[in-house]
Each structure stands twice: as structure tokens, then as C-alpha cells.
């Protein structure tokens, strides 16, 4: 979530003259710390989050652990996010103060309360807090993390939770790898949200997770518009939400290329590379053969035997 909302916090805290310490970009050390402190059953993103907190706990007075309950009315995000502060408090020793209030982004009041509460723990000047708040909202609104490459002959839709898609350590730098292979990337933020709603309304029961709604809506959009040649879904092992959303998507994809990458702390980079390469190769063959599914193997059989 940092990837989506950090400009807001950054602008807000800067206006309040607080000194901000960001944890480093995710790396091996952070992952190791996370695995050390976190319960075994949690998923990789949660472990990485633990690692981030543990890595900066000695340098600051207040760690902001957002407890985001929902982003829009009637939608929730993962239960682990709702209990994140508790998990942190109870598994990492010697913590500085951390934020515990819940945020429901659908209600302005709840967000207001959270922001003002956060401001008050830094300064007592209320006017200053309000000014910083409105500025931070503006900064957030003008910020855009979406990726939509144009200059490549191939394009792949990267679906998955925002932290899986945008954390380059988590997904082993998949965006760069794809770009190096001459493949462009499009992410869910590049597609308008309104189109998601229509897709979701086609379901028997509306899913109540924001992540499922976004990934499902995004993939359906790609299927309809053919805005990309294939979909790669980045998921973390043991994710309860993905176990639902992937099934929902799988039900609809038909023969559209769809690759699921399940990642946990034991996943080897070489294996991921091979799978991505194979997937891209498959896409290339598909394009070359214009849809007929004959194996390209026979073609090469005779080119080597010209001398006979």
C-alpha cells in the first residue's frame, strides 16, 4: 500500500516538519528480519512488512502502521491488514510508539480522525495540521503509479495486489525483466475503475474484497479489449484472497494466455525466470502462428536437413 499512498504521508509529514525515516527498499536483510519475527503461517508481504518495521525500529519515535479497513464503501481489504498493528506489536520486541487507529477510506470522517490524530502526536498546532492535510490530499490526487508501456510489440498485463506488482524485490524485478525481453507492461491502475464495476456486477455475488474486485475487473477488461497479449498474475503463497480471485479469473479466461506466479520466501529466481521466458516464448509462437495451435517443432525439423 506504500506504493499507492506514500505521497500523501510524505507531504503531510513534511508540512509538519517531522523528520521522516523511510525503511530501505525491500532487500534480503529486510526479508530475513521479517521471517525471523513473523509467524510462519503469514504470507510473504506480511513478513516483508514485519521486516521493514524491524529494520527501522531503533531509529525513530513513531512508526506509522496503517490499519486500512476499507477503501470504498462495502469493500474490505485483507483481514491481515486489519490486524496488522496487533501482529506487529505482539511479535516484534522493543518497539517505539506506533499508530493503531483504523482507517476507513470510504468515510471522510474516519480518515480525518486518523490524520488529525497522527498530526496531534507530532505538533499541537491545529491550523498547521489542517493545512498540511489538504496539501497532502492534493499531492496524492496528482500522483500516478500506473504503468502502461507503449513502445513494445508485446504487452503483458501484470495483475495482483499493488504491493506484489510494485515491489521489485518481492517479484524479482519482473517489470524490468519483461522490458529487457522486449515486452511492455500494463498495470491495473492504468485502466479506469468504472469499467471494473460493470464486470463485477456480472458475478453471482459481489466480492467484498477490494483486491479481488480490482484484479478481476482488470483481467476482464484486458480480455475484452485485448489491450495486452497475456496476463501474469503475481500472487503470494497462502493468500486467501487470491485463492478466490484466481479461480474467478480462471473461469473466464478461456484460452487467453494466463500465468500465475506464486511467490514465497523460498521461491528461486531461476525458476521464475524460466517460467516467464517460457510464457513469453509461448506468446511469440502464438502470434507467429496467428492462432493455429500447431507445434513449431516440425518447421525446424526440415530447415536443418537442407543438405540432404
Amino acid at each position, binding site marked *: 500500500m506504500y506504493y499507492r499512498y506514500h505521497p500523501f504521508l510524505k507531504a503531510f509529514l513534511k508540512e509538519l516538519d517531522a523528520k521522516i525515516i523511510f525503511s530501505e527498499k525491500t532487500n534480503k536483510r529486510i526479508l530475513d528480519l521479517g521471517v525471523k519475527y513473523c509467524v510462519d503461517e503469514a504470507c510473504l508481504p506480511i513478513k516483508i512488512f514485519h521486516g521493514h518495521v524491524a529494520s527501522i525500529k531503533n531509529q525513530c519515535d513513531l512508526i506509522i502502521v496503517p490499519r486500512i479497513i476499507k477503501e470504498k464503501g462495502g469493500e*474490505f481489504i485483507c*483481514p*491481515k491488514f*486489519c*490486524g496488522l498493528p496487533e501482529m506487529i506489536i*505482539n511479535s516484534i520486541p522493543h518497539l517505539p510508539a506506533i499508530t493503531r487507529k483504523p482507517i476507513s477510506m470510504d468515510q471522510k470522517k474516519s480518515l480525518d480522525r486518523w490524520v488529525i490524530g497522527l498530526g496531534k502526536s507530532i505538533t499541537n498546532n491545529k491550523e498547521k495540521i489542517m493545512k498540511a492535510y489538504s496539501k497532502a490530499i492534493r499531492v496524492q490526487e496528482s500522483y500516478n503509479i500506473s504503468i502502461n508501456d507503449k513502445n513494445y510489440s508485446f504487452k503483458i498485463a501484470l495483475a495482483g495486489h499493488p504491493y506484489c506488482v510494485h515491489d521489485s524485490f518481492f517479484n524479482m524485478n519482473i517489470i524490468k525483466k519483461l522490458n529487457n525481453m522486449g515486452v511492455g507492461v500494463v498495470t491495473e491502475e492504468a485502466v479506469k475503475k468504472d469499467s471494473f464495476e460493470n464486470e463485477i456486477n456480472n458475478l453471482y455475488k459481489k466480492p467484498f474484497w477490494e483486491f479481488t474486485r480490482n484484479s478481476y475487473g482488470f483481467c476482464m477488461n484486458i480480455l475484452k479489449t485485448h489491450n495486452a497479449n497475456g496476463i501474469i498474475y503475481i500472487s503470494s503463497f497462502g493468500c*486467501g484472497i487470491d*485463492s478466490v480471485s484466481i479461480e474467478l479469473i480462471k473461469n473466464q479466461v478461456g484460452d487467453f494466455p494466463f500465468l500465475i506466479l506464486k511467490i514465497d520466501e523460498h521461491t528461486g529466481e531461476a525458476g521464475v525466470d524460466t517460467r516467464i521466458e517460457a510464457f513469453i516464448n509461448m506468446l511469440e509462437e502464438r502470434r507467429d502462428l496467428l492462432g493455429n495451435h500447431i507445434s513449431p517443432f516440425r518447421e525446424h525439423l526440415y530447415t536443418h536437413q537442407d543438405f540432404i
Partner: protein
Amino acid sequence: MVITFPHFGSTYIPIKILFDELGIEYIVPPLNSNDTLEIGTLYSPEEMCLPFKIMMGNYIQSIEEGADTIVLVGSNGPCRFGEYCELQKNILDNLGYHLDFIVLESPQVIGKEEFKSKVYKIVRHSSRSSTDRWRILGKSITVVRLMEQVENKVLLRNGYEVNKGEHKRILYQCKNELLKTGSIDKALSVLKYYNKRIEKTPVDLKKNPVKIALLGEIYTIIEPFSNFNIVDKLMDFGASVKKGLSVTWWLTDAFLRPLKLNSINIRKASMAYMPYYIGGHGRECVGEALLANKEKFDGAIQLFPMGCMPEIVAKVILQKISKDRDFPIMTLILDEMTGEAGYNTRIEAFFDLLERRQENVLFRC
């Protein structure tokens, strides 16, 4: 229309009586067995949790016997359970079974009208008048309540019993007799009889049995097949057991939630460690652990299916509680691969540990 429903502990008994009384055609899925699990696992997504797989097995087994409508309760919490119906419908459609799914959700979420129409869909084939239906529904809820009362009494008194195994035998007798009764009034009188009979069973109050609370995810607590009948195992060891969550609790909780009067004691207890709801029954689990500690239980066992999100959060907090309050809590995670022998060993070891912690046991070495 032939209705079927997934198994959920012994709730099939009151449901059977209810449908009998209403005159609705139904099929009770065959009792959970390895076959059920195998069928369920075959057709379910790999990463789904254990309850989903067992339920899938239930559906398919009863479809084979002729069911064409599935009744399921739904939820709108951030736990996976709320998404079951969508996925299960898709899977069954893909398998070529086109069935009706009737998902009963709390009226606040889907609107009163829709709730009514869904209930109507179930009862429209009933020959009873509508006042009769309400009366019967009320009675069947009483059956559920009494049944749980009997069970809870048996579980608690089990540790104090004089003749070993007597309580457990009575419980099974009671369930068997309930299954044989054809009418709701008979069922009520059977339950009342057993309620009294249990109180007359001799107990030795001077005993100091090991008392264990079962916490965690509601399905794995209530459905004995999913937890290898942990309750019976603990009863055989001579422990007193308390189940944290039950069907009655779930019903009252669902009805009182709009008024915010639901499970006040749990919410109060969990305040210090988890002040917000995180979906599923994570908060209840924490609250129950603290309550059990307060009620001087010797230890607690947390049960949840592999990958259960709310319970993972709860587990972290339980570890902390365990440390803070010197209260042993063991976590058992269940899925279709869990082996019974390893599971038994862990329960036995935990039980031994609790026994040794009691002062009256001498260390032998």
C-alpha cells in the same frame, strides 16, 4: 425441489427435524468420510481452506443422491467464507450440475425483501400454514439450543465423572435417539430427558481435571471430521472441555450485531489485545482465550484450517497472551494432508504438559 446442505457438526439433526416437520423434501449428505474429502479436494482449488473442500464433497455426494438445491448461509465479513457460494456455484456448473444455490445472508446486507424471498423459496413447498412455519422454526432453534446445552454439560462434567466414559456414551445415545424421532415435539422431550439424566450422572467434585478450551475457526471447532474428533480424544483422556464457539452463539451474534449487543463479554475481554474486528472469528478467538484464562482453565487449543487469514493474526496475539499470562496455548493447523498420528501425539503431549503443571502431580524423575 430437493434441498441439501453442507454438514456442520451435528446441526444436521435439528435441520433434518425441521425439514421433516415442514414437509420439505431434503437429502442429508452422507456423513463426512474420507470419500467426501477426496471428492471435495479433487474439485476444489488447491489453495482453498479445508471447510470449502469438505463442503464440496458434501454437495457432490448429495447431488449423486438426487438433490437439486443447496442451502448455505453466507457472510459478508472479510473472511473467505463469504465467497464460498460464488466459487462453489462456478465449480458445480463446470462439472455439469446446474443447481439452485440459496444463500441466506444477514438481512442488513442484502435487504429485507431479498432475504424474505430467499426464505420463501425454501418453504414454498411446505404444506404448513405460515404461522405453523414460524412456530416450527422457533422450536427447531430451541432444539439446537438444548442440544448444545446437553453437549456443553457433557463436555464440562466429563472431567469429574465417576464411571469413565459414561458421559460420552450418554451424549451419543442422545444424538442417536434424536435422529430417530420424527417430530419436533418428541425431539424436545428427548432433549429435556437427557438434560435431566446428565445432571443425575454421578460426578466427583473433588477431582481436579485438566480443563481445556477449544478456540479458533468455527467450522474446525464444530465439525468433528475436520478436527479428527478432538473433543472425543480429549474426553477419553478425562479432560473437561469447553468449546468457544457454537451454532447458537453464531445465531445470536448474527441477530444482535445490528444492535451492537452481540457477545459483549468477548468484546470486553479482547479489548486489551485486539480492539477491532478483523473478520472471521479472529477477535472472538482472542476474547475466548482471555476468558478461558480468567475462568481458570488449564490451557487452550487453537484450531484453524491452513491459510485461514483471521486466525493467523489471532495466533500472533495468542502467543503473546500465552507469554504474558503464563497460559499454555497450542495451535493445530488442519488441512487434508494432516496425519492423524502426528496430530494425536501433539494432543497427548500437550495434555501431559497441562497435567504436569498441576501441583498435585509429582515429577517422576
